[in-house]
């Protein structure tokens, strides 16, 4: 299992467009990828749930990746967050 924290820098937070792209990114991997804000954890492949987390600029989220391709998946999600959010 791999886990890392990321602080959102985008002004609008995890809004529709990046949430959609993040879900697409996550769907490419076999590993379970989840994102946690406070007490709530959702699967990265679930668009509505991801948007429902209400992640805003300045919030720190924890990404957890678990599965066979977890190294590649974690790296991809990290790169995605850094360049989009």
């Amino acid at each position, binding site marked *: 299992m791999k886990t890392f924290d990321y602080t959102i820098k985008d002004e609008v937070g995890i809004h529709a*467009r990046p949430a959609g792209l993040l879900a697409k990114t996550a769907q490419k991997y076999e590993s379970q990828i989840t994102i946690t804000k406070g007490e709530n954890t959702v699967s990265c492949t*679930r668009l509505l749930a991801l948007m429902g987390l209400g992640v805003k600029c300045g919030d720190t989220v924890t990404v957890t990746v678990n599965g066979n391709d977890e190294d590649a998946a974690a790296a991809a999600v990290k790169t995605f967050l850094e360049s989009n959010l």
Partner: protein
Amino acid sequence: MMKFTGKGVYGAIAVGKISVYERQGIRVKRIKIEDAEAEIQRFESAKAIALEQLGSIHEKALKEVGEANAQIFEIHMMMVDDEDYNDAIFGMIRTQNVNAEYAVAATAKNFSEMFSSMDDSYMQARAADVEDISNRIIACLTDGHSTNTLSDEKVIICADDLAPSETVSLDKEKILAFATAHGSSNSHTAILARNMNIPAIIGLGADFLNEIKNGTMAIADGFTGEFIIDPDEETLAAYQKKQKAETEKRMLLQELTGKENVTLDGTKINIFANIGSVDNIGAVLLNDAGGIGLFRSEFLYLEKTDYPTEEEQFRVYKKVLESMATKKVIIRTLDIGADKQADYFHLEKEENPALGLRAIRLCLERPEIFKTQLRALYRASVYGNLGIMFPMVTSVSELEEILALCDEVKNELDAEKLPYSNLELGVMIETPAAAIISDKLAPMVDFFSVGTNDLTQYTLACDRQNPHIERFCNTHHEAILRLIEMSAKNAHANGAWIGICGELAADTALTETFLRMGIDELSVSPSFVLKVRDAVRKIDLTRPEPVC
């Protein structure tokens, strides 16, 4: 005649007949079903049709509003396929034995309520997206395709609200304007209308719906947000005139966009734009300005209840630079004091604030605030073509102090291994003192920028806010023009360039005078860029100077 006021989301005027937008088949009944799996099959087939429709709407949007704006329909397709959404619908059909229409409607309500209850206006607006896709699936289930056939005449579409897919699906050629009772300017519909270049007014209120009738004449003013139903002749004539002027302006815009700022004899000048917030960048690009000649950084401070951090400022500067790509962006450092006050600065009340502790004086008195801004600016410099200018300088020693602080900031960044680019530094010429010693200031900087508003006030000893002295406050006063000319000569003699960023820059009666002085850049409000370009292109400097 009846008038409603909403929020205009795209500035343009439309005059024409109303067409009330009707939806079909959205009323959903709860029906008990026997075969849950068959009902799920019905849902799956309807979903497939909905996805296909969204696919073609996406295609249409790609052509009409561009990739970035069309993306919402890709998101819609993902929402239709969303696991949680589908699980909720399956669950409801299986456990409650309800029809698919009802399950979709109930699920849509739950998700849209989740968004509506979020404490963020952007997310609240997403409720409309969930409802949009759900209504589409329900329409597919009941075969009630929302086919709004429009007549051949162009009309103003009126509705309670329009979903993004409805907005894009309408035939653009037949629409004069959109007017809705509800909706937010954050909604994708508003964004799409803006990109389709169609005047749109939203939030006209529920009463508006009672007054709209098919075929009634109406006026939609996207500038003011006014919607007039059944206008009298006088009003109609006034708006037709306004519309004509607008069309001419738009023609000018089309005609002059992309053209050079060059006189008949081949003299070139830069025309940049003045802005006060990141929100104005759209207008800068739309009006084809060559860069930003004055970015007032005060808004970062005035909007806050405490000092903006280096990080906050860095993000804003970076965004401006990135949006302007390689074009020049000149940011003026904090110009606070006098009429611009923020409580947390705790400035003492002054007898004569225009001559008091303001702008660079305040920055030099409180170097920690100034250095935070300088650090943010230098760090952002790697993202574009940045220039920094300092307001209200009156002496060489002040400029020395400023430059020493810049060096200090650069040394700090070097030590922290934070990158910065070579940027241009400039001084504003807005006091007679600065103009008179411009020969001494010019060798120390890369450029001058003349702030004509303050220069006029200080040279003529005229408070521009005071209506009683208007006739003494001649902005074309020879003293002011001589000071500008003197500064231009001294700038050029020392290899610096000079621009004008005050109101005078947009005064086309002086454009030729400025060109003759050799002014390199004029920075004006975005909406004046093309007007000045038009003036420049009609000037011939080889002709004898007109006698004033």
